[in-house]
């Protein structure tokens, strides 16, 4: 049994803070030479929450993560910086990373609003969670006040809100499937797969029964231990465009029920969250979302849930070659902990109402944790979501998230008997507005970083 050091692991790694519906993500820079990130971190680290349950029921949470430039700003030595994974060193907006992630055309970092080459550098990401609107505003002002006082600058800010039950802006129940981390104090839902802690937390055995590589300090301090890596992607969703397209392509054309069915086949679940594999014909309503399901035996050809549906691509479970068991084992090596939340005004109502453009900026702040960007997040993105040849398909990408690289739009096949239907010319529904790769240090590492940074502050030229 893996014993996790809960008091050292930041809370966001093991918890989604479902009871704190309001979130604020503050992207901070300490570019100014006069600023004092050391002082800031020395204070803040005492407020950062670990995964161990506090004595009193917490009303708010603070977590913090750093980009590679941020770690350099804190004064880490060259060799220490070089011991972090290359993806973190390069950052999400690097050309090679874009190449791997498929962040091209509409999703090109050049057009981002955060984290791109034309936006200010980001050093730290402060993640704030609270119970209500007032509390989150107060928490935000307190934290940002200290940042400003010490010469830091807020480069970008996003707000997220969990609605109960959580629906993402297209209107689908989200946040259902999550791997259960071995040793986590969170009770395991029967439908959840158990995944070794080392897939998400450095310092523990991973799915290969090995210890993930961990960045090291020149003084022998294990910087990575109890830390994790975080992916941040602001994904703007064109809700009106999505539903208009579903209505247009539905048969009969414009029919709300048929449009909902079609949209559900892109996702792989009904709006209630009920899996299509278990309910191919109708939405049974809330309550079925936590049912267990798999693909290999239940739906090998994809006639219930299309092979290219978002949830199949994001987690193929037992459907990949050569066998159900091999598939499960291989897929288990590419899992993510999702911590994202929707942003922007809620879109509600019938497909026709949702299809009416209201000009609102809404979407998903996608946040994921993993121990290896390359083997987990980037792999899911490249080999599953964006792969035109996924699971024997011929030429299509994830219908929800993929950037459409061909001006003719993209395909989506819906296997059926006697013959498949293939939607052609689908537009892009989700646009990447920016993001970054972050390191989530343990509490001990925060203290170590703070002392490094304080020294660095003191050493700066007068």
């Amino acid at each position: 049994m893996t014993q996790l050091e809960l008091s050292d692991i930041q809370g966001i790694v093991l918890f989604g803070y479902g009871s704190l519906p309001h979130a604020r993500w503050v992207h901070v820079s300490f570019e100014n030479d006069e600023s004092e990130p050391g002082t800031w971190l020395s204070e803040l680290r005492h407020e950062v929450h670990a995964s161990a349950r506090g004595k009193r029921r917490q009303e708010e949470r603070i977590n913090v993560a750093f980009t590679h430039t941020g770690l350099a700003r804190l004064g880490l030595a060259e060799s220490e910086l070089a011991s972090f994974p290359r993806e973190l060193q390069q950052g999400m907006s690097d050309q090679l990373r874009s190449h791997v992630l498929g962040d091209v055309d509409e999703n090109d970092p050049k057009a981002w609003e955060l984290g791109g080459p034309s936006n200010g550098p980001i050093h730290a990401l402060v993640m704030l969670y609270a119970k209500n609107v007032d509390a989150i505003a107060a928490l935000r002002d307190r934290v940002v006040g200290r940042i400003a006082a010490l010469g830091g600058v807020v480069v970008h800010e996003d707000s997220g809100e969990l609605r109960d039950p959580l629906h993402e802006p297209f209107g689908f129940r989200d946040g259902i499937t999550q791997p259960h981390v071995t040793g986590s104090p969170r009770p395991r839902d029967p439908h959840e797969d158990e995944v070794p802690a080392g897939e998400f937390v450095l310092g523990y055995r991973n799915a290969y029964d090995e210890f993930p590589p961990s960045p090291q300090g020149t003084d022998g301090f294990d910087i990575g231990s109890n830390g994790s890596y975080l992916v941040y992607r602001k994904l703007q969703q064109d809700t009106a465009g999505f539903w208009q397209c579903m209505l247009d392509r539905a048969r009969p054309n414009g029919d709300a029920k048929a449009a909902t069915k079609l949209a559900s086949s892109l996702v792989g679940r009904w709006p209630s969250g009920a899996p299509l594999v278990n309910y191919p014909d109708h939405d049974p309503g809330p309550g079925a979302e936590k049912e267990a399901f798999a693909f290999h035996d239940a739906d090998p050809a994809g006639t219930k849930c299309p092979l290219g549906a978002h949830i199949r691509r994001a987690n193929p479970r037992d459907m990949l070659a050569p066998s159900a068991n091999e598939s499960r084992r291989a897929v288990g090596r590419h899992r993510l902990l999702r911590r994202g939340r929707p942003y922007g005004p809620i879109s509600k109502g019938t497909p026709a109402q949702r299809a009416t453009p209201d000009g609102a900026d809404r979407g998903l702040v996608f946040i994921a944790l993993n121990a290896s960007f390359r083997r987990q997040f980037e792999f899911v993105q490249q080999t599953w979501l964006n792969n035109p040849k996924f699971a024997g398909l011929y030429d299509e990408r994830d219908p929800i998230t993929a950037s459409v690289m061909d001006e003719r739009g993209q395909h989506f096949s819906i296997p059926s008997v006697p013959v498949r239907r293939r939607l052609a010319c689908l537009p892009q529904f989700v646009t990447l507005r920016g993001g970054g790769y972050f390191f989530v240090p343990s509490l001990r590492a925060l203290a170590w970083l703070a002392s490094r940074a304080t020294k660095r502050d003191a050493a700066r030229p007068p």
Partner: protein
Amino acid sequence: MAVRQHALTIVAPVRPSARHGLSARLDAVESDVQDALVSVTSLHFARFVLIDGPDGVASRLAFESNHDGEQADHLAALATALAPFEELLFGSWEGYHTGDLAGFVAKNALPASTFYLGHPGLSVAQILNDRDVRLRLEALLDDDVADLGLEGESAVVIRNRLLDRLAGAGLVTGPVDRGFPAQPSSTIVFYVLVVFVVVPAALLGLPFALWVESRERRSESPRELVAEDDPKLDPINRREDAITQNGLTHHVPMRPGVVRARVMRIVLWFLENARRRIAYEGTLGGISSIHFARWVMLDDDTVLFFSNYDGSWEAYLGDFVDKAHIYLTAVWSNTKWFPDTNALIFGGASKENAFKRWTRTFQIENRIWYSAYKNLTVSDVLRNALVREGASGDMTEAQARAWLARL
């Protein structure tokens, strides 16, 4: 007559006078060479790559191709297509005489110890034909079933309607002979050999293998393995994963000693025969994403590995680790700095991080790489063949359904 696919490998020293700046000159002509190779209708894949000579510098130029039919015809077509580049590509070889590719190849071609084929018996022409059959049918269906008047029709009717429309497109349909052996009698001999010779030999050799391993572990000078994310890999990374397929070239020295050399040959022989006799078509230890692959042993005690595979490097190597690690460990544990093994086949390639780093350390950038069907995966090729095969003759309703399900 079934078409056979072959591998051609040449690794020869570069004339000293041609060495300077050769890699840049090769890079510069890559896209022109790719265009020129399209006219070689027997060619599946080809690459030119510079590899280290025994002197430790990139002083050898390797060429590999996977081709259909007779070597002589293939060479003639290559020579014609690449005539404008002859001096640079072939003329860089020590001892090459202008206009005599065939003569040079006759002297210098190396046998592949293990040659793997993902879709044997399908010629380039056949693969392209089958792709067009598939695309044509998909396009007909995209035009919307309703337009074709197919709504509510049976599978047989839909299929017939599609085939009517396909006729006249000038495409070959129906079965072709892929030349699969009908259980060659030597298969039995192979099994007998495995059961009575290979298995007992392996068991008897086990203590010895363990001893060799532990001795080497102590004596092998350490080598700093390139981290998977070393900046040195940027040029390789930039080439990779841009299209459906990728070409991997890997070159590593053997571990010293007769034992390793022997074991290597036995393992490669075993894999080659297993491939030919048991898994004639299909998967390399559960991996279904390799078009062609081969190991070639060079006379300076190094081993070259070429493969043309589908998907990302990360996925390909992940497959190696997840599915084929035993075979790969059996082969590559005989080469230097390979991750620690147990009993020659365990450990090694199952150690994800170490194995990937080892692979990256000895991976070489291709200078020129060519594929005749860049957008097709192995499973596309095989599925397209089934679609083409079923696109003629009559079918029952059940057969027609199964056929339509491939679209």
